[in-house]
């Protein structure tokens, strides 16, 4: 697991890096503030980010929002404060974990592993939902085009479908595009 860490206090950052590396994780980048965290996340594409809440320039929660907006990765917030308002803000932004400082080596590993696992589930489900929505939209377009060909050109359902399929094969374009073109002309 490649991890980006963001922490403004040098000693704590070094400590965090040492703990993570001791636990077998790869710290791929270190940021000293929120702005740097967002930039480094873009540059290094880490698997996970651990962000301190209180940082100069941009705080950890706002940095988390921007990082997730760029590319969805699991984020664990670390904070010297457990105030509920901060926690709620962090959760609303999309973080997977929230640990209070000082760090405990034995708490970091489980937090990272669970965050990665459940984030992977979420990503897989969202991807599946997206591709299903896409497939459904394609099927609807094809059905509409078939209906138009049947009505306007007097083709049977099979013949209409065959016509779309042939056009797709000849042009090397997906059937959905052909169907949408048919709709644009006949619809």
């Amino acid at each position, binding site marked *: 697991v490649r991890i980006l860490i963001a922490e403004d206090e040098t000693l704590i950052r070094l400590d965090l890096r040492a703990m993570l590396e001791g636990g077998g994780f790869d710290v791929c980048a270190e940021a000293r503030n929120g702005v740097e965290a967002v930039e480094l996340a873009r540059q290094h594409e880490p698997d996970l980010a651990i962000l301190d809440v209180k940082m100069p320039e941009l705080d950890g929660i706002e940095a988390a929002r921007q990082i997730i907006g760029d590319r969805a990765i699991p984020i664990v917030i670390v904070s010297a404060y*457990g105030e*509920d308002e901060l*926690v*709620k803000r*962090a*959760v*609303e932004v*999309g*973080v*997977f*974990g*929230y*640990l*209070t400082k000082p760090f*405990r080596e*034995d*708490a970091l*590993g*489980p*937090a990272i*592993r*669970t*965050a990665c*696992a*459940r984030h992977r*589930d*979420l990503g897989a*489900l*969202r991807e*599946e*939902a997206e591709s*299903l*929505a896409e497939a*459904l939209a394609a*099927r*609807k377009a094809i*059905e*509409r085009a*078939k*209906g138009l060909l049947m*009505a306007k050109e007097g083709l049977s359902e099979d013949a209409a479908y065959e016509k779309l399929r042939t056009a797709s094969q000849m042009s090397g374009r997906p059937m959905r595009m052909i169907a949408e073109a048919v709709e644009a002309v006949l619809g």
Partner: protein
Amino acid sequence: MNVRRGLRVLIAEDETIVRLDLRTLIEDQGLVVCGEARDGLEAVELARELQPDVALIDIGMPGLDGIEACRRICAERPMPIVMLTGHSERELVDSAIEAGAFSYLVKPFRGTDVVPALRAAAVRHGELLSARRAIGAQPLRVHVSERSA
């Protein structure tokens, strides 16, 4: 899920003092402890009966352990579960993940770590559910009437 609402939490922990401690610190943050289980079987039953928003389950409990309880609860109704344990070995964490646990707190836990874990688990799990629902809700066939839509 609205994080402003008082989340309903089920606690499963065999040690009475720890259980009381958890209840207090959870309620102090405005969450509602809707049930307390003393072992894994009771946790499964109470999860079914009370339909909590999130559960905090100790791994080392008599009878049915927390990981098996987590597995059974998630099989009946997927819900966010935070595991609680004195051990952070990789294998145990992996089996908790495999059983469906959402996060993992290591004892002696800090009071300040419990509620954030519960909130994060509840909201992220809500996102998982809505993604799952989006998949389940996709109709398999296009109705004929949509052809002319």
